[in-house]
């Protein structure tokens, strides 16, 4: 195996007394479609923010295709695309204007940015809504528009935080097929998700994060160890349910 596309070494971040990320190490090979899974508050978003140069780590190193994100942020940003969990776009631009703007921010000539924007909107099934304000887009349309913005400069590594949360099955399928095709071309994808079935289905590499630490990482088959990923995940992070006996009245159909 050659140099990893993403290498994370001893990454740490604390917010006051709370240690959100407690020293994670991670290697994702080029061409991988990798999943980062973990319960709520495990440190997924904080980790991805530090990997993409959006949040300054307390300690540690992140290398993207050998480029140190925090030593040379411009070089790293030039080769990555990011879709954050809480997709916030320029609401008062139309879909076409938004993607063109994202391209022009990446120093693309306006004509090329406009052409690529049209092609991406077409593939993302947003062509009919290209001239509508992003403010009027549904959740799924917004996720797809954000993905378009992240892909317009053809990055070699793509980070996505909960890309399919709140997305309808049809839009989810469009996103899933686009990511698979992108990874098969040799580019790398790292995305966080709660949806184990999705990760199991599309990812060739999985990392499980809990309480700010990577508790398992490897190929999807290695991590799940003969079980479903859901089962393996629950075993590793532990069940967190309350006592259900108190709900004895539920389902009796009496008031």
């Amino acid at each position, binding site marked *: 195996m050659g140099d990893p596309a993403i290498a994370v070494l001893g990454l740490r971040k604390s917010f006051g007394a709370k240690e959100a990320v407690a020293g994670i190490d991670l290697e994702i090979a080029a061409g991988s479609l990798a999943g980062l899974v973990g319960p709520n508050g495990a440190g997924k978003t904080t980790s991805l923010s530090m990997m993409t140069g959006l949040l300054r780590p307390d300690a540690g190193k992140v290398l993207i295709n050998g480029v140190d994100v925090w030593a040379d942020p411009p070089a790293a940003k030039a080769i990555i695309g990011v879709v954050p969990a809480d997709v916030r776009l*320029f609401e*008062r631009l139309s879909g076409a204007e938004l993607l063109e703007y994202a391209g022009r921010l990446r120093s693309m000539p306006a004509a090329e940015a406009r052409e690529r924007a049209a092609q991406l909107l077409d593939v993302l099934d947003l062509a009919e809504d290209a001239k509508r304000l992003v403010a009027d887009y549904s959740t799924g349309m917004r996720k797809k528009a954000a993905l378009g913005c992240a892909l317009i400069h053809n990055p070699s590594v793509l980070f996505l935080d909960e890309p399919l949360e709140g997305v309808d099955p049809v839009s989810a399928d469009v996103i899933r097929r686009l990511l698979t095709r992108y990874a098969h071309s040799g580019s790398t994808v790292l995305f966080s998700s709660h949806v184990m079935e999705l990760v199991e289905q599309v990812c060739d590499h999985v990392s499980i994060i809990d309480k700010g630490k990577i508790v398992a990482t490897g190929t999807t088959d290695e991590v799940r160890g003969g079980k479903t990923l859901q089962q393996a995940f629950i075993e590793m992070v532990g069940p967190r349910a309350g006592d259900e006996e108190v709900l004895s009245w539920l389902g009796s159909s009496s008031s």
Partner: protein
Amino acid sequence: MARILVQLKLRLIANALRSSTAAQTSFIFSILFAFVVGVGGFYFLSLFRGLSASVDLTTVIFCAFALGWLVAPIFAFGLDGTLDPATLALYPLRTRPLAVGLLAASAAGAWPAANVLALLGTTVGLAHGPLGVLFAVIAVVLQVLFCITLARLVTTSMAGLLHSRRGKDLAVFLFIPIFALIELLGQVIPNAAAHGGITAASFAGVDAWMRWLPPGLAAHAIQDASDGHPGTALARLALLAVVIIVLGWLWVRALNRALVTADTATGSSRLHGAGLPLARYGLRGAVAARFWIYQRRDPTSLVYWAMTAVITAVVSASTLLGDTGPHRHPGVVIGSAVVGAGFVGYFHANSIGLTGPSFVTEAAALTDRRSFRAYFSGQNIAFYVIAAPLLTAICIGLAFGVKDPAEAVSAVAVALAGVGAALGMSNILSAGLAYPMAKRTGSPMRQAAQGYGSYTFGGILGSVGGVAVLVTPVILAVAFTGSVPTAVLDPLLIVCSIAYGIALTFAGVRIAAAIAQNRLPELCQVAIQSTA
């Protein structure tokens, strides 16, 4: 049902009290303010006693209260859960008892009580004799009932819209007339009244048409009863009662419909245009294009420009209305220009917090000092092409208003230099004093997030103070070149002021880029913490 909904309203208020120290403080201030409005309103209305225009003034006040009831719930739509039919649509409730309950819930709370207390001032200010006082009490009750029913009808009918993006835009736009009204009532009228520009007699006859509005019927009923015409008074109140019944009937119908209608009334219109403008100018052009589009499409941006115009005009208008003689206030329009330019700077002094989380997309392009310069100068281009003509037009208008057209040139020169200074200052403050913006319940406009109030103060001080200091050379140039012929001086003054302003903007861009270059992750965090 009425009891449950009143309890719900009181519980919502109590829970807001428990939520945080800020909420408690806000609640206590709200109660105190309601008390002041109630007692102050009572006192104010009682002052009309014996005035020839007392019924006219009372009519205006009654109409103002009705307007307040009409507008406030649109702002408070997300704040008061009992206003939104969608929150009650899940439960098996019949419309009629629900309507009665919602009406009772509306009447509960400090503000309705303050409203009643204030309007009862008419028992002193307008009513005469026992019959007059009796009619005043009934008229006040009907007036408050009218206000509540009207407010309920409007919010219920608009519930679908108020949930949508367009409804939220509308709430933001309503900020403009309310801000203008606050400035008028808080600055212009008191100042004009203090200088004799406005007296009680100025209101005589203003109710020529207002008297036929429902609030006018209530006010005139009190007058009629006091003047010994109880029949006419009764007829007016009966007409008002009919209006309330009709509004109530319409409201019940609207409520019936709202309970079974989807609340997503978001219509989206198709935009025209081939793409972003300024295609040839790289990052600077892209940023200028984005900011230019936002100045037209973003309600908050439009509100900021409207507020700038109002503030600029008010600085001179209060003086104009107070002292009407020509040449009485040399320099007042220049003062307007300085304050207007200062607020141009202040309203854009936190551009990253205002951009919100989508700044992260722009941050991908901000890789070095040069790109930051392009970013800041791009937004300055968009702001300048609006601010310069806007302030120029206002200054010329104000100069003609004070009957001193010669002051127009001096004021425009100061404004143009001031806009340059303001944009430079706003860049520096955006880079060095960025803070997250948050939308608070009850306000359609975003404000500094909790704990960042002092940053707002810093922004005002930095922008207005900075502009005042930086335009001093232009003001001095105006003062010391009075003897030079205007044909020579005026063009020179304008050109030099523009050049000086642009030089200040360039300096601001360079300083801001140097600051921002080392703070990009922190600026991204400010953006992420902001509400879009």
